[in-house]
């Protein structure tokens, strides 16, 4: 285990699945992860947001798949043998798949070792970067994917379009 268990006042212990996007590590609360599947044929849905890559079939259910890289304004995915789709159970009960470069390991973190991020700092990655966890292997950004709201992403995109337009003018 990589957690700092010698910490005196033990807070709540939460398990995170650590994933990689490029060099960065992110943690996703294991309670919200329904399943992790290998990269597979994704059925494209036309005319949707660029980060929505399409839909896949998970146990007979149609599940939308999003590119976490594109949501976070990183370079587009390059699918390799390590690429995985993390199926997250959203607060509303729907399932959403997120494409990640690779899944590293499971990490148990004491809630005391997580530094909450102020909203101002989280702008870069949208509204779902909730904190940074410290552990022996380094730092891991905690993602609250289950509360991700498409509306907030869309309004973010719209704002950006507006800025681009104003620059163009």
């Amino acid at each position, binding site marked *: 285990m990589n957690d700092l268990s010698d910490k005196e006042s033990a807070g709540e212990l939460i398990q995170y699945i650590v994933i990689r996007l490029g060099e960065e590590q992110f943690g996703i609360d294991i309670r919200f992860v329904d399943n992790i599947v290998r990269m597979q044929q994704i*059925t*494209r849905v036309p005319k949707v947001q660029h980060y929505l890559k399409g*839909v896949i079939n998970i146990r007979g259910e149609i599940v939308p798949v999003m590119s976490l890289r594109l949501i976070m304004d990183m370079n587009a995915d390059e699918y390799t043998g390590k690429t995985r789709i993390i199926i997250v159970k959203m607060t509303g009960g729907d399932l959403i798949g997120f494409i990640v470069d690779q899944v590293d390991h499971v990490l148990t973190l004491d809630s005391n070792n997580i530094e909450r991020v102020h909203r101002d700092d989280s702008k870069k990655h949208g509204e779902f970067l909730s904190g940074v966890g410290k552990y022996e292997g380094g730092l891991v950004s905690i993602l609250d994917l289950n509360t991700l709201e498409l509306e907030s992403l869309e309004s973010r995109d719209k704002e950006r379009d507006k800025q681009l337009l104003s620059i163009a003018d």
Partner: protein
Amino acid sequence: MDVGQYLGVFLDESKEHLQGLNDNIMALEQDPANEDCINEIFRAAHSLKGMAGTMGYKRMQELTHHMEDVFSDVRAGQIKVNGDMIDTLFKCLDALQAYVDLISETQDEGTEENLDIIKALSDIRSGKSGGDGRDKSAEAKKEEAPAEEKKEAEASGEAPWKSIKLNDSVRSALVEAKEQGKNIYGVTVNIQESCILKAARAFLVFKGIEDVGEISVSDPSTQDIEDEKFDLSFNMIVTTDESKEKISEIINHVSEIESVDVGDFDLDSEAADADKASEGAQGAAASEETAAVAKADVKSEEAEPKAAAAGGNAAAQGGKKPAGKPAIARTVRVDIDKLDVLMNLVSELIIAKNSLISAATSEKAESGNVNEQIEYLESVTTNLHESVMKVRMVPLESTLQKFPRMIRDLNRSLGKKMELTMTGEDTEMDRTVVDEIGDPLMHLLRNSADHGLETPEERIAAGKPEVGQIFLRAYQDGNNVVIEVGDDGRGIDVESVKKRAIERGVITPEQGEAMSEKAIIGLLFNAGFSTAKVVSEISGRGVGLDVVKSKVESLNGEVDVRTKLGEGSTWIIRLPMTLAIIQALMVKVGGETYAIPLDSIQIIEDVAPDEIKLVQNREVINLRGSVTPLIRLSKSLEIESNQPEDANMVVVIVKKGEQQAGLVIDEMLGQLEIVIKPLGKYTSKCKFISGATILGDGEIALILDTNALV
């Protein structure tokens, strides 16, 4: 012979035969000389008689026998079909239906002999006319019966609520209430015979009383009343600060209540009875001699409620046997093809299991091999799941069948002229939804007949055809099944709704001014709101709509209404059909597979590139004289077509209302029955896609919404 196991089949088939009889007799009414109809009726009546006899339902058999005799004479040409005869036959069918309903609830046919109908049937055979007189006598009899009951009850000074048995906790609660100076009343509520949603009325009565007091006990129990397990009346004991008159006024305020009987509940005399009984019991312990007497006492007391219940049962056709619910399995009739598919899948499942075992036990167990087998297993189980879902799907038809007869009856009872047209009866939905949706639809149809349509005179004055039109349309719309019920009647008067809402204190006049038309019409769905000037026996608009709404919402659907004053209104029920199955044409566009619903396709054409003309910068083709715009799906779907420019194009001609358009595809794959799955809110941005389906190999194909494309 133990016939219990055949009960389900008997009920199913009886219902089918009765429906067939209903349909055919209606057809016969239109065309009295139709021999096919008569033969069909004769056969159905004969089977029904045989089945009832086999199951040992003598009264039902007897009635069917007389009905069969009539048809036998009609078939032989000895008597002619006429209006009175049809009426009598319908009455007979209703009585048979009552038998079947009673059997399905209690496994017993009850004691109703229906002698008047049997007599009417033999009168027809012996050639007597005088249908009117017969009707009257039958009705009179019906009216007499409850009156007699009432008289009896009054004569013996026994109001029905007096039969309520109190247990100790209730009694002590009543004693306490009495000490607090509250009034204790016994209340008996009789609901009109024509009431459809008895439970809803009872609920309103309860709600009204609970505003001013408390219901200590009710007979039948509150649960049974909510489940509509009661006949036309129920009793309760109420503690309140209000007067008798007030209570009775509150209850009478609820529509479709026939009568209310409120009386003082005498706790002392009830207690005295109880004391006597317990004294008796104590005495029993003391001496053997008295024990015998007491035992007899106790026995008779036990027997009493039983007898009362049994009596109630006999009188009440809808009554339930107090001892346990007879379990009758709900069945779905399944197309043999669907079962074959299931059977095949199960054999595939066994093969998959065997390959998995051999892959796992073989010496050189390669993980790749096992994975392959697991994937195969996955695809089989997915298909199995889908097939089972398909088995649950039934056409709406089974629910809609009874409506033509209902409208025919309303035609007579309301003195209006109307016609019902139904379309889309073959729309498939899950069995549970199909079962549940019947009542709301019936209510909406009755609403249309009673309130929507004007009288013939009014219609003529308004320049409309004398015969009013009522329609019911069912169809699939993307992920939903839509059922529209409407009429070409007077429409909803928004101003009068607003006025009524203000009068009733539902909204303030200020609110009324600020509300949009739509919001005001929405008030109709509020509980206890009625705009009908006269609350008739057909429907008392208000409670009904409230119930319709809650029922539809419980099925995850929604109700909406479109209305135009003077032109009619349409109620639109929209239900999600996560399970719906459609026939679709599978096509390829730029390497991707899409499904186009077959019912929107008119024809498929092969078009040469030089046939395309440009009109107002749009590509069109001349399709047998009509100019049809072309839509290149590859462009709409933002994908590269992999067909060469100069090759002939496959064009799927689709229609949207009166319009038509040609969708250019790359390749046709063929027709497939597909299960529509919702795409979910995250991918709802694409308007062209109405859903998705999972193909046999586990891949997903998107379903095109041609209405959005055209």
